[in-house]
């Protein structure tokens, strides 16, 4: 009987944890990828500044209007430029950023292969 009671208490304790599920999942995903412009180095999600809070309200509003995350990113990009996104799209300013890792990987691979062949 005692064991049963303990089990019930443990069960109840664990089931109440679920009450703190994240409600604003979609909004959080989006704001994590938006840069706070007045508290640089922080995302809008992390920041509690006035500007970031306004951005959060606006993201909520846009989500209510039924915009997709891509459309919301485009909306902010149009207003503030590429810098507002933490995940910049491929364009003429960022192609080096995108291609450099691939380039380094290829060059490294070439060096490794070459040294292997030379050893043989």
């Amino acid at each position, binding site marked *: 009987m005692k064991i049963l009671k303990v089990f019930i208490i443990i069960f109840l304790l664990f089931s109440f944890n679920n009450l703190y599920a994240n409600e604003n999942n979609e909004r959080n995903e989006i704001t994590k990828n938006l840069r706070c412009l007045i508290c640089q180095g922080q995302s809008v999600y992390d920041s509690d500044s006035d*500007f970031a809070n306004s951005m959060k309200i606006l993201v909520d509003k846009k989500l209510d209007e039924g915009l997709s995350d891509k459309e919301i990113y485009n909306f902010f990009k149009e207003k503030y430029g590429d810098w507002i996104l933490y995940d910049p799209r491929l364009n003429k300013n960022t192609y080096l950023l995108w291609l450099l890792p691939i380039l380094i990987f290829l060059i490294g691979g070439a060096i490794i292969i070459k040294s292997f062949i030379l050893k043989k």
Partner: protein
Amino acid sequence: MKNKLILSSTILIFVIIFVVFYKSLKDTNIYTPEVKFNNNIPTFSAEFLLSTDKLSSNTIFERDKYYLLNIWASWCVPCRDEHSLLMNLNKNEKLTLIGMNYKDSKKNAKSFLDELGNPYRKIIVDKNGTTAIEWGAFGVPETFIIYNNKTIKKYIGPLTQENLLEIQNLIK
């Protein structure tokens, strides 16, 4: 031969790294959004500060007229500094001044205008800061010059005497 190659390439790499770091050392990290001209103004609806009307933006801005939209707040110190310039600009009949009261209480905003004068034809209220974001602003004060529903000029921070002359030349 091989040693020489390694030595020279190491030196080269260090020189490149040095140049890159030295250059970025002098770069400022503070980013201000790129100012885009001839941007269509956003559509929004807002309340007015001094009346209870609610209007959408396309009834505020008419074509073929110059408008100046100034984002201000009573708690913003630089706004106080530029206020005399705005009062000055208000004398120009070609320009209509629209104020946007940013994250402010009505009471404070009104006493600010009572104290320093009201240069604005209309004042819209932006209680939670979202309308300012629609405009691409990120702080106070910011000033936009609007012609034919397009932003033709944007000033971040308080206006200066030079800006004033520039605006007056623009709307001639």
